């Protein structure tokens, strides 16, 4: 961890995750998050130069799909899963 976790970082992360946090909550969570991250700090002591990051544990080749169009479900059925719609468009609260 390059950053030291402080109140500002908690605020920034909460902002990116669209969460509202009060100062009391920050005071409550900050030591907990610091503690969890400190468990990982030992990893920082390891020399990882020249070691490729492990992305998949087994060296599998991804399965590729052919470029074929298939309609798997009707638009109406999918629209029914939404709380609100206008015609065939999904309706959400204003975003600007």
């Amino acid at each position, binding site marked *: 961890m390059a950053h030291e976790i402080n109140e500002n970082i908690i605020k920034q992360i909460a902002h*990116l*995750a*669209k969460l509202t946090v009060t100062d009391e909550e920050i005071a409550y969570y900050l030591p907990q998050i610091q503690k969890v991250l400190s468990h990982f700090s030992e990893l920082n002591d390891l020399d990882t130069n020249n070691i490729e990051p492990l*992305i*998949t544990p087994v060296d*599998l*080749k*991804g*399965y*590729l*799909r*052919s*470029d*074929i*169009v*298939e*309609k*798997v*479900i009707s*638009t109406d059925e*999918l*629209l029914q*899963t939404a709380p609100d719609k*206008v*015609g*065939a*468009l*999904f*309706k*959400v*609260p*204003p*975003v*600007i």
Partner: protein
Amino acid sequence: MSTNLQGYEAVIGIEVHVQLKTLSKIFCSDSTDSTAGDNENISPISLGMPGSLPTLNSKVVDLAIKAGLGLNCQIRTKSFFARKNYFYPDLPKGYQISQYEDPICEKGFVEFFADGMEKKVSIERAHLEEDAGKSTHYPEHTLLNYNRAGVPLLEIVSGPDMRSAREAAEYCKTIRAIVQYLDVCDGNLEEGSLRCDCNVSVKKIGEPKLGVKVEIKNLNSFRFIEKAIDFEIERQVDQCLSGQKIIQETRLYDPDKNRTFTMRVKEDAEDYRYFIDPDLLPIIVSDEKIQMIKKTMTELPRPRAHRFVQQMGLTQDEADILISDKAIADFFERTSELSKNSKLSANWILRDVLGYINDHHLRIEQIKMSAQSLAELLILIDQKIVSGKIAKSIFNDMIATGESAQQIIDKKGYKQVSDTGELEKVIQDVLAASASQVAEYHAGKEKVFGFFVGAVMKATKGQADPDKVNELLKKMLKS
């Protein structure tokens, strides 16, 4: 143009989003048809429903490799997808699947001419990602159409190598020509299948450190790219000169007002909290695959322009305009081949055909005249059966109606009169009616010769072959 920037210089880098020409989306079998009705092309995967899993479209990988080779890139034999996290309803998953570290194509370059100078721009990377849905905003709510969510894109990222708006526009044209030639993208800026975002910053000349960059979006024509960047460079230099700071932000271009305005203050890359997408396995590309795709590569724009100059006798400027759009270059080659006159074909296409499509906002594929019809007209000009002036009227009718040159000639009675007997008769009449001018001519006033030519052309309604008229007049005035 880098006119007087008061000691400052501009640095421009460009991201081009190229929509890859597939039938289905990048991670599911929804259609990519842009004419479909609202939300017609959606499924649980493109809506990001819980439990749905992406499966990569093989055609997307092939097209990305092909584009990468056209951009002189190295193709990674192993690359990965990453999640770019942000909350916006145009992507219901809460992240966009993209590539971050290890993109499929990297370290390439393109070359082109700008203002008569040869320019080379580096391509840092070209990576695969999915497009987002389209949102329409109202004061009380936002409406969403996810037909575009999951459409495959290749994002081509240039180095910060351009110094003027003109170079930037030429770079974008070059990228479009390459992807069109390779048939990996239809390259339509108006419909958004090719989108150019320009990063612009300014710095004092000689200063090694780059200035704060501003990204300009919403540029749907090459002309707007040039105008928006010119405006933005000027705005930033003014800002610097008056001692104000430039803030890192995204600005939109308003073509009506010819200015840019703030859209949002940019989030940093680390704000996107990229991480490898655990739902997708690495993209593995074999050397055999790359070799196989190499074999399917067609002639690219630059070599084609070179061939037009070297083998067909065109100027570099003529060749550059013709090759910038593959369909126009194809039209030219076909016309040239059928008419056996490259120079004449180039002249008529550059002046008359392009003039017509620009005036009518058409693409060359949409005009009614075929390359074959144009070639037929050019042959008639070459054989002096019609004069240049009449050919222009015939051309106007041809391109408007789609009729052949012969049909129009027959209908309107156009024909170049080069029949000696017929012309001699007309000349005799003209000379008989202008006795005083004939006398002047014989008295040594040779200027009146032009008067006779004019009179003959008038009598034949411009349809006489001027060379033949000259020849016959000289002969008949002597006798």
